[in-house]
């Protein structure tokens, strides 16, 4: 009991709590922080406590789920019809593009066979939903409803329909935590699509801004240029849209041009996200190929995702 006996408590006395206990607890907290910062034991602890943590996330997300359902229930029919038509059009467009792509993939595959390339870039993806909770407003993390049981691993890129959202940083049994590209500690290797200039886009901590602080001053970067992933660094595969340049100016030192970009992905709106399954550059020798019963033109499409590509 931290309370002293009532007759000793006065308005201005030291009384109530002793400084010694405070110092003991503070030291304990600091020791825990240092140990955790060095060793990262929190993830293990969170895994052990996931039976409590995950339901808590679901419960905390409930109010926003209810609000969403309510909004859907009172949406007018004309609104829904509009949305439906727009989606149909988008689907048609995407389908058309996809058909062209599959022709290209087939062609690419043939050419690769000619060149004797062992590995192909099969694009296994997995759908996950956001659990709408907020871990800390000043760190841009989102919680997804798929975890190690759904074979999510740390480092998988997270995409939405428009571009790269971020990457998985922590995996619990049934949920995982992804860091968005706008998190202040996040950096992603990018390429200016028009010129091929490679640079790095850093998060700023505000949800609609990326910064490119070290672009050479002589480089050809213009407002409106598209940024795509460059594939360097081996984490994000090449060619996914990252953002669009909004502004180019000199930085304080005058040695570099500092550009500001807007992320392509709808970071504050996406409900469903895609998780890429194949990490872009598999290390080590290729896995022994299983005997194929029938020769199909598209080995990437006929493989179950993620089964044959990882050693």
């Amino acid at each position, binding site marked *: *009991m*931290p*309370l002293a006996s009532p007759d000793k*408590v*006065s*308005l*201005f006395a*030291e009384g*109530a*709590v002793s400084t010694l*206990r*405070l110092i003991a*607890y*503070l030291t*304990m*907290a*600091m*020791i*825990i*922080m240092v140990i*955790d*910062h060095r060793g990262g*034991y*929190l*993830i293990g*602890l*969170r895994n052990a*406590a996931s039976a409590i*943590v995950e339901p*808590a*996330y679901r*419960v*905390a*997300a409930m*109010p*926003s789920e209810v609000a969403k359902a309510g909004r859907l229930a009172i949406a007018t029919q004309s609104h829904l019809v509009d949305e439906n038509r727009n989606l149909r059009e988008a689907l048609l467009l995407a389908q058309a593009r996809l058909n062209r792509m599959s022709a290209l993939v087939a062609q690419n595959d043939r050419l690769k066979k000619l060149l004797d390339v062992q590995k192909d870039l099969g694009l296994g993806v997995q759908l996950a939903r956001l659990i*709408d*909770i*907020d*871990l*800390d*407003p*000043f*760190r841009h*993390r989102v919680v997804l409803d798929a975890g190690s049981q759904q074979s999510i691993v740390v480092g998988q890129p997270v995409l939405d329909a428009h571009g790269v959202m971020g990457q998985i940083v*922590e995996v619990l049994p049934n949920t995982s*935590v992804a860091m968005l590209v706008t998190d*202040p*500690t996040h950096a992603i290797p990018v390429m200016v699509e028009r010129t091929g200039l490679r640079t790095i886009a850093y998060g700023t*901590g*505000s*949800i609609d801004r990326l910064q490119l602080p070290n672009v050479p001053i002589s480089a050809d970067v213009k407002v409106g240029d598209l940024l795509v992933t460059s594939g360097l660094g081996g984490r994000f595969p090449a060619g996914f849209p990252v953002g669009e340049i909004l502004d180019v100016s000199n930085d304080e030192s005058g040695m570099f041009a500092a550009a500001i970009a807007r992320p392509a992905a709808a970071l*504050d709106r996406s409900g469903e996200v895609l998780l890429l399954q194949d990490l872009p550059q598999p290390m080590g020798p290729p896995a022994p190929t299983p005997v194929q019963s029938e020769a199909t033109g598209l080995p990437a499409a006929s493989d179950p995702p993620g089964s044959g590509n990882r050693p």
Partner: protein
Amino acid sequence: MNRRRTQFLIFSGSILLAFLLQLTPLPQAIIVLKPYWLALVLVYWAIETPDRVGLGFAFLLGLVADVLTGQLLGEQSLRLLVMIFIVLRFRSRLRFFPIGQQTLAILALLLNDRIVVLMVRGFSGDPMPSMGFWIGPVIGMIAWPFIFLLLDDLRARMRAKET
């Protein structure tokens, strides 16, 4: 005995609710406005029933909060410890402050808490947060009278029902 049980229900219920509120999202535009609910509720209980809320309790609650939000383990323990220590030290005065003065004291506490956060993040090498970081305490101050009156009223009702 029954009375103790209802008191305990209010106590644990309010703390559970604070945890959930802490995790519940706000629209992106006003996300920085979220106050530190857990601290506000804990401060109320430290002022009203200090035999329940000691330094050890604050420490443990902070650890639970850290496991829930997955930041640095011990960060929230430190924040709650500092806060509860100050509240317990000045409890006899805080209790008899008029509500306006109490609210200002809460603002000072929450600002102090922000400084503790900055210290922890500085030492662990995290980037410094944006200016919106300093809005939270003001919102917490605005929320304080409501929390205080709500919980006080709830307890008074329960007590009235008993007798």
